[in-house]
């Protein structure tokens, strides 16, 4: 499974793709099957939005103990906020969706990030 993410141009906020627009919560992101070309399609659209977002890329997600979460801890930190300041970033909102991200423990490199670096 994959999710499309980027940073919003105006403020750098981490955002996720959902049906043609961008949302701030990972829990609201649109999930693409790994082999679904719609994910690449959304990424292509996002690349054509340079005044909206910076560096869009697809990330791998997986079912965790409490719900889906990014596979790489780097992407989990992006979806939550800094671990040294639990009141900063998206995690401050709390709730089940945040708990699901906090409960995830899987580890892998951010393939999306690696792809982005390759693209550069």
């Amino acid at each position, binding site marked *: 499974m994959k999710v499309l993410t980027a*940073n919003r*141009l*105006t*403020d*750098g*906020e*981490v955002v996720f793709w959902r049906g043609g627009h961008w949302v701030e919560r990972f829990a609201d992101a649109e999930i693409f099957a790994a082999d679904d070309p719609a994910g690449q399609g959304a990424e292509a659209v996002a690349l054509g939005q*340079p*005044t909206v977002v*910076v*560096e869009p890329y697809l990330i791998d997600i997986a079912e965790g103990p409490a719900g889906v979460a990014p*596979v*790489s*801890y*780097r992407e989990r*930190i*992006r979806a939550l*906020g*800094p*671990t*040294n*300041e639990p009141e*900063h*970033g998206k995690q401050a909102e709390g709730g089940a969706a945040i708990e699901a991200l906090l409960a995830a423990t899987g*580890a*892998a*490199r951010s393939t999306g990030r690696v792809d982005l670096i390759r693209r550069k």
Partner: protein
Amino acid sequence: MYRYDSIDKAIVEDRAQEFRGQVSRRLTGEITEDQFKQMRLMNGLYLQLHAYMLRVAIPYGSLNSRQLRRLAHIARTFDKGYGHFTTRQNMQFHWIKLAQAPDILDSLAEVDLHAIQTSGNCIRNVTADPYAGATAEEVDDPRVWSEVLRQWSTLHPEFSFLPRKFKFAVTAAEHDRAAIRVHDIGLILHRNDEGELGFEVAVGGGQGRTPYLAPTIRQHLPAGSLLSYSQAILRVYNRHGRRDNKFKARIKILVAALGAEEFARQVEAEWARIVAEQPDADLPAIELARIRGAFTPMNFETLPPRSAAFDAAKAGDRAFARFVRNNVKVHKQAGYAVVEISLKAIGATPGDISAEQMDAVADLGERYSLDDIRVTHEQNVVLPHVKLDDVPALYAALEAAGLASANIGLISDIIACPGLDYCALANARAIPIAQSIAQHFADQDRAELIGELKIKISGCINACGHHHVGHIGILGVDKKGEEFYQLSLGGSGAEDASLASILGPALPANRVPEAVDQIVERYLALRQGEERFLDTFRRVGMAPFKEAVYAEAH
């Protein structure tokens, strides 16, 4: 302290205005991200994991109370109420919005601050000994020469697009508090046998993926030739630096490839050409005098060397006595002290300071330290000119502000970069490792028993956390997507500079405090006399420590 003249002010204001236009064009799509990135980086603006980060230059780590209050204002108004001091004496704000960045630069310009050249392949903020003007060790004030370099290097047309970033550090004391040997150019002010002021010039130091200690290429450069000689060094680097390979583009690679002797020969030849062809390459005496005038010795009072109030407080308050032992240093003027303020409270993020604490330090600097405040490369703050009589009251005020941690130079005074909690380049987190080690060694008596032990942590190979020169260096690595930490021992960024050597295989995060504890216990068992950890390590070598940490694995 140097005050901006009309030219300095115009440069900073113009630059802020220019950047406002660039941001506007980026937001409307007139310029692409690739085009804009070069412009924002030259103004210290990065895009990090959660937001934009703005790095504000603090020239040679020197601030007045008005400037620190303005940084507090920016933290409160444009960030989440705090700032982060870096290992290059700068301040970073981690939650900046692009659309507000021009307003921040305007606000900084009002108090003679800016973010120019805090990123990009140019000459970065010049760093210096934070005890400048306060220590009896120094032969001259390094801030004078740092300011000369600042003015010369600001928007220098020939050196704005170097093969890679370029960092100067300056000291005038024997005790190196500026990590001179791990800078592109490290300058050590001294007097030669004839009593003439000059610089020992070290070139080609640095950390990152290929660490080097800077070799000395000239033992005595007459002080007045600083700019022409720097120009020669930069010119040789600009000519031969590896622009084809980012990872081999720093001057340290060039110096290592040519050898220090050949590099020095080329610099000397270039310098001779500059001196012959460009008679105005060095600063005119009148301009040097103008800059020096900004750093005239403070109006210190004539005081006895001992203070009854200070001695009484020390005798009557154990916590204050501990603060004095660790955070209060000798001043050149009788009756005064240098006071270090630790930003390493147990469990805190190294280098972070809240807006309220910034205001408190600004007030205390104004009241007790002749309005002079310094930032150290070890991510702490210094009030350089405090009367001994005032230290007890200062300590009480610091305690009230949560800034009285008595751990300067001890095991919990840890350098850590922002790591993967904030930085887009990082492979692993650094801050939580620092926090867990500090918590493990929270017992102050034990920390003092251990003595000087400098732990430095980086979240990636770029080494912003100076792990190569940590007595214990810790590097975060990504092992198949998991955070692991590689420990190194025996580094030093001080006058006895050395690069740390890798202890063994990387460890998972939860093993790190225990491993540090095993190293410390082995050191305490092996220590002879007054040896610091580093002294013991240098005497006995790596083997006993390796055995202490990895014995179970065999």
